[in-house]
């Protein structure tokens, strides 16, 4: 087919419907907040990570020096290992206990609202108050050891024995699993009842029903909570700082030196904001990698109802 010379390509006009325009206008407060309070500081911290900066004097560019120093800093791997230890105990614990509680809540009928409120209350309790509360509970003669004593167990020194400091912190962290419980509860309620009925007719026992129906249907929620709890556990700060670093009592307790606490010390005690920024970026990369791995793995395990892919 012959063509008659070059025909000018039709100009594509970027047209935005009025609805879309209004959508962006309504989004604007968040976008401004994100740019000013999140993206901006993030970019700034990236630059600062290549500087020596104490806030008082102008940043002095030192290239990769902060990152090199991190390689030689014993407290970087120490605090990362502490944090990883915590995350590896905290996340599975939260997932398992939350799921158990959510399944129990399904069975209590109308009063589940009261229980949900009770489970969620610790989440709205200030972290400093939680830390202080657990200082009392985890004391050698505190409630937890008293309960263990009832079973003939001589409880450890949760607050002063380096071996037991992190397990104690994990115990404390399980106190605030209410948010995960609520998510699981909502997900469980969305599992179609007819599937269970069909399974029962087919003779499936409770475990088979849980494995083949419940778990796949709530796998999306589990995936979400795994990611969110993992990120939160890698950032734990306030409770632990209150318990072990807020006063003189916990001074020097390296078993509780989590990564964000060390980052805070470098920034606000040692006034080394450049180094702290570099630490922040290392944490960001670690979280990114862990999340990517989780996302990759999720392709095998997560089932989205209605997803035709």
């Amino acid at each position, binding site marked *: 087919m012959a063509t008659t010379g070059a025909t000018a390509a039709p100009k594509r006009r970027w047209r935005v419907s009025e609805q879309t325009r209004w959508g962006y206008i309504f989004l604007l407060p968040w976008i401004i907040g994100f740019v000013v*309070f*999140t993206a901006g*500081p*993030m970019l700034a*911290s990236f630059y600062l990570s290549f500087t*020596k900066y*104490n*806030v*008082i*004097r102008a940043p002095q560019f030192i290239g990769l020096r902060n990152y090199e*120093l991190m390689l030689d800093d*014993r407290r970087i791997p120490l605090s990362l290992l502490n944090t990883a230890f915590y995350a590896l105990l905290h996340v599975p614990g939260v997932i398992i206990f939350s799921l158990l509680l959510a399944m129990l809540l399904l069975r209590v009928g109308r009063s589940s609202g009261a229980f949900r409120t009770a489970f969620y209350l610790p989440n709205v309790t200030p972290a400093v108050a939680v830390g202080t509360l657990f200082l009392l509970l985890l*004391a*050698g*003669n505190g409630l937890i050891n008293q309960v263990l004593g009832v079973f003939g167990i001589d409880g450890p*020194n949760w*607050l*002063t*024995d*380096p071996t037991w400091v992190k397990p104690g912190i994990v115990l404390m962290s399980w106190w605030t699993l209410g948010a995960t419980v609520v998510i699981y509860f909502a997900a469980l309620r969305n599992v179609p009842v007819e599937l269970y009925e069909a399974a029962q007719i087919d003779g499936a026992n409770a475990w088979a029903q849980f494995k083949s129906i419940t778990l796949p249907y709530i796998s999306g929620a589990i995936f979400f909570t795994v*990611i*969110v709890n993992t*990120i939160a556990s*890698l*950032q734990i*700060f*306030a409770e632990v*700082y*209150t318990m072990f*670093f*807020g006063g*003189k*009592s916990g*001074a*020097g*307790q*390296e078993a509780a030196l989590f990564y*964000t606490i060390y*980052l*805070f*010390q470098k*920034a*606000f*005690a*040692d*006034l*080394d904001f450049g180094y*702290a*920024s570099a630490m*922040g*970026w290392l*944490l*960001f990369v670690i*979280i*990114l990698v862990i*999340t*990517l791995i*989780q*996302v990759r793995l*999720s392709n095998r395990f997560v089932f989205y109802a209605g997803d035709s892919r």
Partner: protein
Amino acid sequence: MLTKRTTAALSVALVLAVGACSGDNSGASPAASAGGASAPAESAGESAAASGGAPSAGGAAISGKLLVDSKYGCKPIPCTPGEGGADEIGTTRVDIFAEQYPDVELEFTEKDFDPATFLTSVAAGDPPDVVRISRDIFGTYVAEGALEPLGDCISKFGIDMSQYREPAVAAVTVGDQVYGIPEFYDSRILMINDSVVEDSGLTTADVDTADWTKLTDVAKKMSKTEGGKLTRIGFDPKLPEFLPLWAKANGASIISDDGKTSQLEDPKVIEALQYAVSLVTEQAPGPEFNDFKANGPGGKDFFGPENQFAADTLGAMPMEQWYLNVLANNSPDEKISFAPFKDKQGNPISLSGGSALAIPASAKNKDAACEYIRVLTLPDTWYAAAKVRADKRAADGEAFTGVYSGNKLADEKIFGELVNEQTAGAYYPGVQLTLETADTAFSLPPNAAAEEFTRIWQAAVVKVLTEGADAAQTLTQADQEAQDAIDAAQQ
């Protein structure tokens, strides 16, 4: 290529991770000792206001806004008693300055020193004119250029530095420059529980830190265990905080006099740590000892009537003198003896601490700030504040064991006129001993990595104490880390 789900998950990760990177300025706030802001005293020739500013001791007209990084809490100034966020030692001194300089518009941050707040205010170009910082961390702020050298202030306003206690001045002097004026002053003495000593078949004279072998025996004799659990501490060496004191007792210092060289690997420091830790472990394993100290009977009510002395769960310990006041008001009838902490040669030694008032380098009203600092640390100002407290305590039927300032002349006046056997009760010997040993105290020299240095050596002590780590190896490693930190901070 990223799927939608991947992108969504990464977005969540990004936002949450940035949350971590952006930090949180809650928490850390190394407040110094008791009291709030400071206040000035009258001195001859300093009269009231004139329009355009009152003449100060230095002859400069003092007026304008003066932002003080401290608590006060009463408005208007002078303060109406009972309304304040600071105690009477703070408000009285501020009121004296305010009366003397009515043209100075005083404003307070109403909080203790917080590094994050201070730094951001400096960065924002709106720093306080006066800051009150613990002398322990002073060196860091000097090294970072945050504080003004006070040479001009001292000469212009005629501040007599000889009136301040030397260890306190040393802690705020870097090179030949003074960067702060000492405010409060802590020192340490031994507090000995007579009933525990008696119960152990000992005398108070047996509790002697000069004889380390004997002290170990005494600690073991005074401690008690039941069912394999510690029920009474015989002697608490106060680790990790008091390592510098034990090192000094052994003839060493954990840092050089110029604050530039870590000496944690000094064999005498190592020996001191080994000994102090052994004092603990001869009584109970480190973690158990620390838990009992913090949470056991008495320990849990350290500031109350069920303290360790009242509960007889402690034989003896070195302690800051402010605890005399706690005991005097909570356990007035408790029989407690006092002794100096001695080095191995038998000489009394003590470790001093406390706060200092300083002027940020970028302060806007430096003349007023200097005069404020001068007036607040004058003997008459201190005396006036101490008098208010003494009267208040007397009216409330409470004991008064004194106010310990960094000003020798002030202390002479306060303790000469306001504190006696009647006001301090059974704790008066402790007061007298504190005053006697105050001048034997030493302070750690300011160093550029003050907080990090402290964290490093305290972590080393805790490691040896609670994990049974080798003291020599641990302190050697800590020494290297500390030196690196000091070197980096000085660059």
